[in-house]
């Protein structure tokens, strides 16, 4: 029996909530219980006695582990993540994290949308022309990009652009940003966003088109395709109405599974282009051993992936009448 959409959403929501809770606990375990010396992780080096006392009190470090866990959960739920210990020394993590997250969301959002669009088209065209020149060249290119680490591709673009043009390669806006008018500001931002998005899109297109291609080829070798041809349908109609709807289902699943992968790509790209999102923040935090920042960045990244998976599950349920869970 296919259950109602509402029940399905409810079940998935409970699952999501439990997973997020588990991730928080895992986060506690990783950063508070696993390290031999918790103070090294949570308190800045060479801090004054006053700061040490304040932070010990804040995290409840003198209390037993279960009490610390409760304190940790309470703080996590109220968005009180402590303070950065080296990269942005002394700043509240919760106040800096929002701008970084927003920038990553923008990069990943634009990148994913564009690469789904182009990836599906390219995968469809290569599968349709399977074995022909277009397919061979296209598939080889996809495969190379698929095997190329994102940071490497971004680094190559950076080298080319930095050597042969004045196109901005670092950060999100120019030094004279404040003096530009509204249109100028927008253009400036767009200019800075172009390269990171381009790098992300090319890398992700490769993955998506490989998936679409193999999924569509699976469908095209099914017997009802022969029936469609025998009925005298035109090639385009077969592709559009018979093959694509079935081929798209695995694509949706795999795209959802790849959200974590896209995010990883975004992290690398942010580092290369000094784009100040979560990935860049993680990078700088890792380099300066700023564990409170790493902890929050990790949690946000994990939660983002879980939510993306949830959305994809709902999309799949809505698209495919056969799904019953």
């Amino acid at each position, binding site marked *: 029996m296919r259950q109602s959409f509402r029940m399905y959403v409810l079940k998935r929501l409970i699952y999501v909530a439990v*997973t997020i809770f*588990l*991730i928080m606990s*895992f986060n506690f375990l*990783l*950063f508070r219980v*696993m*390290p031999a010396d918790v103070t090294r*992780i949570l308190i800045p080096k060479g801090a004054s006695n006053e700061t040490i006392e304040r932070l010990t009190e804040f995290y409840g470090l003198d209390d037993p582990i279960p009490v610390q866990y409760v304190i940790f959960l309470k703080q996590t739920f109220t968005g009180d993540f402590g303070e950065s210990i080296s990269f942005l020394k002394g700043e509240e993590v919760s106040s800096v994290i929002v701008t970084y997250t927003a920038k990553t969301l923008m990069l990943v959002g634009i990148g994913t949308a564009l690469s789904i669009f182009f990836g599906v088209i390219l995968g469809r065209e290569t599968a349709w022309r399977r074995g022909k020149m277009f397919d061979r060249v296209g598939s080889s290119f996809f*495969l*190379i990009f698929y*095997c*190329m*680490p994102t*940071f*490497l591709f971004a*680094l*190559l673009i*950076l*080298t080319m652009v*930095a*050597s*042969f043009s004045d196109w901005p390669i670092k950060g999100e806006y120019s030094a004279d940003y404040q003096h530009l008018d509204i249109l100028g500001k927008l253009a400036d931002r767009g200019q800075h966003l172009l390269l990171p998005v381009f790098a992300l899109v090319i890398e992700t297109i490769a993955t998506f088109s490989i998936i679409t291609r193999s999924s569509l*080829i*699976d469908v095209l*070798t099914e017997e009802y395709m022969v029936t469609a041809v025998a009925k005298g349908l035109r090639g385009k109609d077969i592709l559009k109405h018979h093959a694509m709807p079935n081929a798209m289902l695995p694509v949706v699943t795999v795209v959802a599974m790849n*959200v*974590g*992968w896209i*995010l*990883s790509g975004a*992290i*690398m790209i942010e*580092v*290369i282009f000094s784009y100040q999102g979560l990935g860049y923040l*993680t*990078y700088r935090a*890792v*380099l300066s*051993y700023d*564990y409170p920042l*790493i*902890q929050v*960045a*990790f949690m946000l*990244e*994990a939660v983002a*992936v*879980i939510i993306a*998976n949830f959305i994809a599950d709902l999309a799949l349920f809505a698209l495919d009448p056969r799904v019953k869970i």
Partner: protein
Amino acid sequence: MSVQHDKPRNDPLSRIFTESRKERARLLLANMKKIAKQFRKSRGGMLGVCVLSFFVLTAIFAPWISRYDDPNDEEWARVNPDFSPPTLDFLFGTDHFGRDVFSLTWYGARASLIVGVVASLISIILGTVIGLCGGYFGKLPDEILMRLTDFFLVIPWFPLMIVIASLLGRSFTNVIIVIGITSWPSTARIVRAQVLSVKEKGFVERARAVGSGSVRIISRHIMPNVLPLVFANTTLLIANSIFSESFLDFFGLGDPTVVSWGTMLEEAYNWEAFARFAWWQIAAPGACIVALILAFYLIGEALDDVLNPKLRRR
């Protein structure tokens, strides 16, 4: 042979574990020949093998190919020009310290191959044990192990690696450990699914009926049917491990004293090789990473075709 049973799969590898010792040795040889014969037909697979052999050879003979006995030796660096483009003297140019990129590249192959193979081994052992236990024992153990697997599948893999690596600290062994303990879930899933289908077969039932213990059933009857799948998956895992290694190194989480392609790229980035158009410093390790990952990927695809023909309809 204590148990006479039917041979459910006649394909390579699976019969090796089910015959007497002498027979097994003969079968192994015959099977290897058969696999090799089929594998040789795959053009992509053979290309992968060629590329892989090239890197294995250069990794072994790195000290003889390159001009350094020790890649961290700074003696040469002092003599050479910095950022020299490729010349006859320096085939791949020199880096920011004046080190010969050609020499470093072959030492880098060592790091990538060692990390790739050892980390994958860790992850395969973990994944196989977890998948076998879950699939074979079922019920509560399965429930717990599979929830654990799901949990690790859901957590984004790169951030998790970054977090664990940053907590463990920069060292070569840590990179291997981090990759090994974060990449097992996919293997566990594959193994469990296969165990579940094998478990229901008649020969397992029969083995149990004549009184074989769990250990014997798993090692003699279930493992042989699971291993071909794991084997084909291994090469893809190695490709992934090499990918992760280069990324961790680039992210500043690798061992700075070990020459690897990732650290070469990290240094090229930190010393702004891109702004000087020192493309050789990026292209050399970059091309090697892509070539090696591609080689493992192609071998994996070809092996998959040979070992698990049923999975492929096309």
